[in-house]
């Protein structure tokens, strides 16, 4: 209940701030993009897996938006978003078939390696992708209306906010469902999960597609906001930022990803004003401090209860030997 109220209040504050101070719209949308992507990473973190390459899916979706918008001018923004999310999910399904065979270090590093290949391929094929300069696109209509700049930003803000609320709720429902609990079971004990007759790979594959879709949505919104897509969108630092936000927010609740995004942007603001050129350093230092001091993240510290069953009962049933 607390979390639901907090989410709605947060969304209302974002909307009001965006309408009163028009310059706030862009940072809020960017923050929501980061939150959505981190939410995707969080889904996998519940399974104990951390991907260092999920910016690739944001990038795939971003380029899908750009290709479609350039090929069919006048195509609705919402359609572009939908198509690009589908593209990200399909890519996630294909790559997922390979990476879900691996856990932990291999899982993280294989995702990183694949995203780096994708990044450099984007830069190499200049005729198709525009190389490192990327592709520009015109402002598409949203829900049938051709907005001017401020109206367009407001429309994107409303889209991003409602998508975040809906998807946050859906991810919570998913976490509490049998499939979501099984996903968390991969972290607790995968062998036992398989003894229950479930395929850990298939469960992780489903989670992987969900996370790819969320990152895709984030990338699509970001590209629509900027009107430009470059390979930078899929750079490893960005994947690192997603992981950073997910760790900062914690995997207990979907709200964590968005709270993490707020803190992330605050750090970014302070960093660019006070210590320019040390962005990665600041990020790395905060990451280390969070892991050493509060490895469960913000939602682990705040009194936000997960929608799934109480943890205590499970802990009591867990045998002593827990090493596999």
């Amino acid at each position, binding site marked *: 209940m607390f979390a639901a109220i907090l989410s709605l209040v947060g969304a209302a504050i974002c909307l009001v701030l965006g309408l009163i101070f028009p310059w706030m719209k862009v940072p809020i949308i960017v923050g929501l993009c980061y939150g959505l992507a981190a939410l995707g990473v969080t889904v996998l973190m519940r399974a104990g897996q951390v991907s260092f390459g999920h910016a690739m899916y944001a990038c795939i979706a971003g380029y899908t938006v750009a290709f479609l918008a350039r090929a069919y001018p006048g195509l609705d923004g919402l359609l572009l978003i939908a198509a690009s999310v589908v593209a990200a999910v399909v890519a996630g399904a294909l790559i997922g078939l390979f990476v879900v065979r*691996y856990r*932990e270090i291999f899982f993280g590093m294989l995702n990183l390696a694949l995203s780096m290949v994708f990044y450099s391929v984007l830069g190499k094929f200049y005729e198709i992708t525009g190389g490192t300069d990327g592709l520009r696109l015109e402002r598409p209509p949203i829900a049938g209306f051709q907005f001017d700049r401020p109206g367009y930003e407001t429309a994107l803000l409303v889209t991003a906010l409602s998508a975040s609320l809906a998807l946050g709720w859906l991810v919570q429902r998913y976490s509490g469902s049998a499939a979501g609990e099984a996903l968390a079971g991969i972290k607790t004990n995968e*062998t036992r999960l398989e003894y229950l007759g479930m395929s850990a790979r298939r469960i992780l594959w489903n989670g992987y597609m969900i996370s790819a879709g969320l990152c895709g949505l984030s990338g699509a919104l970001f590209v629509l906001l900027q009107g430009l897509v470059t390979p930078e969108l899929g750079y490893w630092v960005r994947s690192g930022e997603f992981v950073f936000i997910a760790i900062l927010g914690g995997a207990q609740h979907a709200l964590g990803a968005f709270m993490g995004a707020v803190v992330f942007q605050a750090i970014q603001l302070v960093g660019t004003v006070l210590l320019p050129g040390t962005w990665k350093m600041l990020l*790395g230092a905060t990451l*280390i401090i969070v892991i050493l001091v509060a490895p469960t993240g913000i939602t682990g510290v705040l009194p936000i209860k997960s929608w799934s069953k109480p943890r205590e009962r499970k802990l009591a049933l867990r045998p002593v030997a827990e090493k596999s």
Partner: protein
Amino acid sequence: MNLDLLPLALADGFSYAGLLFLVALGLTLIFGVMGILNVAHGALYAFGGYAAASLVQFIMSRGDPPSILLVAALFVAALIVGVALGCLLEVGLLRRVQDKDPILQLLITFGAFLILDDLQQLIWGGSPYTASEVSGRLGTIELFGVTYTVYQLLLIPIVALCAYGLLQYFLRHTRIGRQVIAVTHNAEVATALGIHAKRIRLITFIVGAILGALGGALSVPTTSLVPGVGTDMIVLSFSVVATAGLGQITGALIAALMIGMARSLAVYTFPEFEVVVPYLIMVLVLLIRPYGLFTVAQARKI
């Protein structure tokens, strides 16, 4: 591809494989003993390279030094960087997360990598660094009608093979080396038998760090360093280590040779795919053998 270029491509690949092996050896040694995949290894490579370039330039500015001094400077730079950063990382960070999730350990080294990556740009800036004087001094050699630098064709592969031989000797025939193997098998029992596991871990990490820095230092005479070189290297050396199987030292030698050769053949035939080839090999190997070529199957623990 022009067949005349084949010897050149092979020699190129041989030399590149040597560098790759040095870096991968450090990575796989640290993983084998400590169970940590050290992402900051890429930063060690970059720091080793930049430090070596600076040291060589400093010596050159002091008059006309003998060539042997310049080559020695590369090793000295790698040693300093490896010991200093290795100590800092192990004592400052890794020791504290020794008992945590492997994924948290990975994230800690990732955080350290982010910090070091920026630090390197603050110290050395964004302009490219090189020390081509060193390879120029050592002269050239003619092989199958192709002229090649002695530095690339002989020095790098010899250093790589020496590192392999010395490490094998160290692990099998010295007191500390055998303690390292004991800690690898079971740190708890090793401690109970009187082995100072903490110290063994520190030594291992420093040796691994020196190897990573040495890879960077030896690369500066032939290539120029630019920001981002550390990231490329960590992912590339991971692909070598993953292809071989994590913790496999001899396997890393073979995998480095495979990937180094394939990459340089790609450079001469399909340059667009140069970046992709190592990962393609890794993916193909992992599809057939999920935990690398040389990993022995392990029983599942329930």
